[in-house]
């Protein structure tokens, strides 16, 4: 079917994968305690995708500045965050492998000590006055995003005795449609905590391994920062060029 120019008359889109349990975690995953009382008991209801889900806010949300992508300095204090500098970059792709340009990527992470700047994070690790732990950018015309940050620390949580979350960065993406909306987490390679983490392990293999970035020496910058590469593949097709239909909106 054509994705350009004409109205959507069909109500079923065969190329969009829904409810794929080989890729997405179940709602109820008993080892992740918080899922026990927050997961639906009843099965999701199958409905055709309509214009409401094949459209989405992605193309219309684009208010970012270049400083937003530098987590080592975007606290605006004039100081630099403490920790091992890292560059995290990759491509955002649709399910056909085509780049998704100009789409918003929002991230958040703990500081080098494993502490979030958040009113509900109370464990006794130091805060860093020069680190907010939040960033965002738009993908470029090749679907590439890029952040400069510091490597987040692991941190304890109360899911089970001696529970620790592996180092990770949270990612939020819109992509071309409501069906492509994704919130997920990126992990770092060679972390012994992976096997012990119920959140990561809720995703079945081989999809689980795809949550782990690879060390990329070509991304590493000499005498500056270690490089990691992580591509993200969203559901659904990249339908049309991202253009505002008309005028500026705020």
């Amino acid at each position, binding site marked *: 079917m054509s994705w350009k120019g004409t109205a959507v008359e069909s109500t079923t889109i065969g190329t969009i994968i*829904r409810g794929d349990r080989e890729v997405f975690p179940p709602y109820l995953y008993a080892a992740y305690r918080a899922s026990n009382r927050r997961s639906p008991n009843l099965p999701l209801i199958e409905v055709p995708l309509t214009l409401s889900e094949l459209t989405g806010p992605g193309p219309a949300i684009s208010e970012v500045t270049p400083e937003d992508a530098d987590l080592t300095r975007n606290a605006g204090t004039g100081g630099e965050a403490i920790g091992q500098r890292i560059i995290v970059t990759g491509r955002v792709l649709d*399910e056909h492998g085509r780049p998704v340009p100009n789409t918003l990527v929002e991230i958040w992470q703990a500081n080098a000590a494993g502490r*979030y700047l958040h009113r509900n994070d109370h464990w006794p690790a130091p805060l860093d006055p020069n680190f907010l732990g939040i960033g965002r950018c738009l993908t470029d015309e090749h679907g590439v995003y890029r952040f400069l940050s510091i490597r987040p620390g692991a941190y304890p949580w109360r899911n089970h005795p001696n529970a620790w979350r592996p180092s990770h960065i949270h990612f939020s993406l819109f992509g071309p449609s409501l069906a492509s909306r994704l919130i997920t987490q990126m992990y770092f390679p060679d972390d012994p905590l992976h096997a012990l983490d119920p959140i990561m392990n809720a995703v079945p293999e081989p999809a689980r391994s795809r949550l782990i970035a690879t060390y990329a020496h070509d991304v590493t910058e000499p005498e500056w920062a270690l490089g990691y590469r992580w591509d993200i593949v969203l559901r659904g097709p990249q339908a049309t060029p991202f253009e505002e239909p008309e005028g500026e909106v705020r």
Partner: protein
Amino acid sequence: MSTARLTGAQTVGPFFHPALLREDARRNVLVQPETEGERIRIEGCVYDGDGVPVPDAMVEIWQANHYGRHRHPLDQRPLPLDPTFIGFGRCGTDDAGRYWFETIKPGPVSFDGERSQAPHICVLVFARGLLNHLVTRLYFADEPANAADPVLQRVPPERRETLIAQRAVVDGAVVYRFDIVLQGDGETVFFNI
């Protein structure tokens, strides 16, 4: 079509607020003074399986404008766009599990060449404990078109009311109440999209 390469979802966790609800990322108010359409306020509470309010959820909405057109390149129907309206909202729940939006009631959206969908708003729910986000829809209690809505008809009749926001007029303002029950008695209908 191979699904092997898709990136799986992970929970939003408990610490998303500074990133996703920073002042210019939070979007409770979708309207401007010039925005066309009936002004409505949407209010609700997110509950867990014990009936306890969820204080660390995030609700996002996506909707068509007053004429039923989406601000998106795929929606090329010959209906007016409203330059003051995007149609996207994002709100965190407060300590009592409550969220709210100020928006307009959307127009009907086409379903296929022949049928229309009743006016509705797409609703996404994120929270610690939700490994995937949840997708549902808000319909309007006073809307006759609900009876023929092709998506609502896929829902067992006894569960449809979980998708119907109840209308009230409070201090002269139109308020639609839409509670979201994640689990258990009165569990909201969630869709596989």
